């Protein structure tokens, strides 16, 4: 308990640094949100009016304090381009990002776990080398490139899958699946290399353990030993890396969401940077930072729980 408390306390200075960092970064970027908001309706009076509306006429430190003060009270502010509450802007798009992120993760695990297991069992064989090679290749191809090719081959030419767009799984599970498959493959392929590597190395370690040898000696079939006894234990470290990947879903999807016009948080972040939508950029980065830190903490705790040899004093 005190361990958790200590970890949470250590998060505070990090969160503080993140707020200062993102605030400075976006506010010091050249560009004037008033000009973006006004577009072809710009004139000096309107620009001054927008600056006042948004509090941009105040000194920077005051703007920062106002923002942080509101955040502490649970008020994330409103988007300066759409007036949408920032919290809603993010939570409205979160289901789309989560669905994509989880589908991508499933895709990467479906490929990685069998490949990793085979590679470990047949260590050093041609199968091992091919499996490793394929997974390293997966992390080497730019995911937007995979996305572009998938769109043109399977969507525009073959018309097997729809082009982009998102259908909530609660609304129509089948359509939702059809829409999510291509972006999930584009996004998840990079994860396969990491997950496959973890499965392989942890499997190798487990297979060297005495109890596996004992199980074999007792006459259990090799297949049963591998898939029942070994795999279960080998997946423990995989769980941790998967946990970290969940913490990184928001940022991972930035490009894929853009390519597939997926209405998620990553695309919101990019468009808000371009639009100098200060409040939204700040909100997304802060949320992503928190989810990253909490996922790290959760992973450490789960790891300690799964593997009693590790204890946190």
């Amino acid at each position, binding site marked *: 308990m005190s361990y958790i408390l200590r970890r949470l306390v250590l998060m505070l200075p990090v969160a503080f640094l993140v707020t200062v960092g993102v605030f400075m970064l976006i506010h010091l970027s050249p560009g004037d949100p008033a000009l973006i908001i*006004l577009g*072809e309706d710009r*004139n000096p*009076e309107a620009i001054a009016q927008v600056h006042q509306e948004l509090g941009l006429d105040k000194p920077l430190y005051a703007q920062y304090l106002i923002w942080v003060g509101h955040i502490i009270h649970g008020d994330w502010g409103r988007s300066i381009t759409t007036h949408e509450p920032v919290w809603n802007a993010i939570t409205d798009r979160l289901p789309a990002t989560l669905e994509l992120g989880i589908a991508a993760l499933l895709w990467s695990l479906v490929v990685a776990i069998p490949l990793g297991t085979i590679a470990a069992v047949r260590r050093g064989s041609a199968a091992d080398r091919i499996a490793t090679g394929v997974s390293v290749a997966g992390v080497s191809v730019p995911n937007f490139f995979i996305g572009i090719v998938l769109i043109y081959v399977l969507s*525009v030419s073959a018309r097997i899958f729809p082009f982009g767009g998102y259908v909530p799984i609660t609304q129509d599970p089948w359509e939702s699946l059809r829409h999510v498959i291509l972006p999930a493959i584009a996004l998840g392929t990079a994860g396969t290399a990491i997950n496959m590597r973890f499965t392989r190395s942890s499997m190798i370690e487990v297979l060297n353990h005495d109890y596996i040898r004992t199980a074999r000696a007792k006459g259990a079939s090799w297949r049963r030993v591998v898939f029942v006894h070994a795999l279960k234990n080998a997946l423990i470290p995989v769980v941790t890396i998967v946990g970290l990947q969940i913490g990184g879903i928001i940022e991972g999807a930035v490009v894929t969401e853009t390519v597939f016009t997926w*209405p998620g948080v990553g695309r919101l972040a990019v468009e808000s940077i371009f639009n100098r939508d200060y409040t939204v950029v700040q909100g997304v980065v802060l949320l992503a930072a928190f989810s990253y830190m909490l996922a790290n903490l959760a992973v450490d705790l789960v790891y300690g729980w799964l593997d009693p040899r590790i204890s946190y004093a």
Partner: protein
Amino acid sequence: MRRVALGFILVMLAAACGGGGGGGNGGGGTPKNGGTATIALESELHTLDPMDSSLLVEREVFYNMYDSLFTIDSSLAIKPGLVKTWDTSDPLNYKFTLQSGVKYHDGTPFNGASVKANIERYKTGATSRRKSDLSSVKSVEVTDDTHVIFHLGKPDSTLLATLVDRAGMMLSLDAVSKGGQNFSLAPAGAGSGPFEFVEWKRNDHLTLKKNPSYWRSGLPYLDGVTYRAIPDVNAILAALKTGDIDIARVIASKDVASLKTDSNFIYKDVPAIGFNGFELNAGTSPFNDPAKRQAVALAIDRYAILKDIQFNIGVVAYGPIPPSSWAFDSSEKIYDHADASKAKSTATGFTFTYKTTSDPVNQQLAQLMQSELSAAGITMQIQTEEFATYQQECANHQFQACGVSWSGRIDPDGNIYAWWHTGGSFNDSLYSNPQVDQWLEDARTTADQAKRKQDYDNAQKQIVQDAPYVFTTFGVSAQISDTKIHGFTLYPDLMIRMAEVWKS
């Protein structure tokens, strides 16, 4: 993926060369009720409230949800909207007779009091961007439910055209106050137009449904319209081909030719109302020297730009007023084909920096102009900037040359006054010519169209001659759809009005 930069480059990307005014209505047959159409929007909306709107794509949605006091026909002539008849013989007191029996989607009546309240909201709202649109309107007097008088502080010959646009859109103020802070995100019941607001999922889609008691009887034909935000012209084309959308507002110029030959799709266009080109900063070196500005204008080959960059979609531009306008002057050809030797004898051997964005089409354009100018001994350096930075520097006069296009306004005043009147809000070039100022002011306050045209001809000739802006091309307004779409009328103002569209 590159963002499509607000309204500025849309006209560039939009497509093909059409004849004179008049957009025919697409396809024969008897209109059929039912069905829905999906339209791609190339950029995400910021607001659904005309009061704080400033994007082209927002207007596009508004015209199907809200009614304006006035409308236009396909040749830009002012037509009745919520105002049935009007009397503008007294330049300071415009008398309007309103349609009777019109109701907003929330059931509240449209009447004189509603007009007055809407105009006051636009004139005084804390976040209103309509204040300068309506600066000539002093007050609105309600005579009775169907009669209002607009009292003007000064004559304003552009007012009716302004009231076609957002400043003339009438909203149920009940719905506005019910919506409260979130009104601009979900303006339920606020309009009186052919379609009603249903929902807006930002970054994804916006849905409208048929207004069953629309005051123009028999309309609309469609049960609903869905807008999908697809912020990339290549993706828009892909979505059109996969059938995920029925209508696109813009596609890349290079893709027009192949779409035209594809029997599954319709491509048609008419001249639009904007202009393309770039600003030269007359407030600083080197372009504080008029000869250098003229040399650049002489060295640019508009026909090459039209052919190589816009794939012959649109026409070359000589001045700010496009062929779709009544004030178009076809005799204005001071700088026609590129003339490197004449440019050289005007001014040569200088260097300047041209600012643009990383959009591939803008980049290609910059490289083409660079090579054209080098033939005249002028060195053009290309500086690529991220959109927000570029926009700020151009607006704040921190540039030598800046590629900025204009989506255009219905009245010629909107294409010229703010740009080249001394201190005008779009006068990034810091151009100032008292005589031009005088012509532009005259044209603003004169009701006589022939007299106004004379003023615009004079002003245009002088501006083109002085070259604070190098005009390159005029864009088009296009119908880009699948063949199931009928009854589509092309308007030069780039807006897609869906009331009369039907689907087979």
